[in-house]
């Protein structure tokens, strides 16, 4: 995280089920915020890199998010594209949980 980054409150930690994802909109940007079964939190860009489809409607399986449109997959912990038709990696963001809230570094 560089000095320019600021921590932005995304949601309450309990607002995301274990092994699930929620959408977080900030200004004209949109993100997907994830919670693993081990209660770790991650954040990525909201839209799939294949087409403009929001990943928060997708399915979380372990560390993978499957896109709801063409079943492309990403590892949301690294942003790596894991299944075609996605070929381009996803931007990830640093996350911290404080006082029961999830913050992402923008």
């Amino acid at each position, binding site marked *: 995280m560089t000095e320019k980054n600021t921590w932005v409150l995304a949601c309450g930690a309990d607002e995301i089920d274990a092994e*699930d994802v929620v959408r977080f909109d900030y200004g004209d940007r949109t993100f997907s915020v994830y919670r693993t079964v081990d209660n770790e939190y991650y954040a990525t860009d909201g839209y799939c890199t*294949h*087409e*403009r489809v929001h990943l928060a*409607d*997708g*399915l979380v*399986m372990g560390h993978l998010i*499957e896109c*709801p*449109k*063409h*079943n492309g*997959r990403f590892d949301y912990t690294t942003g790596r594209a894991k*299944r*075609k*038709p996605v*070929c381009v990696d996803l931007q990830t963001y640093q996350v911290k949980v404080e006082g029961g809230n999830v913050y992402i570094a923008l």
Partner: protein
Amino acid sequence: MGAQSGKRDYSLTGLEGKRAEERGLVSAQWYTTSIPRQRMKELMKRKDGPAIRDTLIWFGLLIGFGALAVWSWGTWWSVPIFAIYGILYATPGDSRWHECGHGTAFKTAWMNEAVYQIASFMVFRSATPWRWSHSRHHSDTYIVGRDPEILTERPPIWKIIAMQLFHLYGGPVELKRFLLHSFGRIEQHESQYIPVSEYRKTFWEARVYMLILVGTVAASFYVGSLLPMMLVVLPTFYGNALVLLFGMTQHLGLFDDVLDHRLNSRTMYLNPVLRFLYWNMNYHIEHHMFPMVPYHALPALHQEMKGDTPVPSPGLFAALREVIDALLKQRNDPSYTIVRPLPDTARPYMAGLPENPYVRSKINKYMKAG
């Protein structure tokens, strides 16, 4: 209903693609029925059990009927036995290709991939190019100039439909592509939806297909009988009828150039045997709206959605009757479109989507005429 002016260009490289883009129809947002997230998560849940069971039954039936077919070779018994073998080869070949291509049939990724590769060869669809073609079909379903999987144009080309009863149109086209791919080349229209990074894989898959094809033909020559080809290559032709009939029910006669799958896709009820062969793709509106839901959960998804979708066709014959009637009408009036009324509980067509003047005027025009 006013006739459409002139014949449209269904190719992916013509003007219609550009027109679709100008009309806001490309990779656009589609209507979805609202389903609570918790329920959606249950429906999307992946399992290995149903697909392993169904795959074992499928391969078991193929081996059983294949053995009977060999035993009956040279007698009249071979006619009905090969007919059943052909249907068991091509119809689940097509539906397994489809579901495993989406990656939803099995929970375990390599199982999806293995069945996808086998089924792709069985139905003569190059695995990698068709994966991309099918993605485009889901992005731009029945958008003219964009969707490479439109079964027939308006007005319909009956000759192609008749030939497809025995895969005599698509089969040779795919064979030509296998050959082209195995020499490291692709067709111009394929370059519209296959990324360059996937070419290498495409070429190697085609070489494997060609090896199996040549091997089977050589085996037939070696034993001096058509039997090896009757078991491996030819069923994709003589067993194709049901693949065509199922395929015809999916979208034909309904709207093109809209953004609501309730307008351009058809759900029909089928008996359990046909649903096994087709892997529940008769729930076609449901599949297009939520491709994340595996085939085994589609009946449950249908229950969830049926208050928001048109009443399904009661069976395969009823759906085909509707389709053929519409195609016959499109011969004289290519714009003829079936309008399926929504139940009172449904949200209106295109509800909640950004207004699209072209689609809106199209729906209004046909709704009034219908």
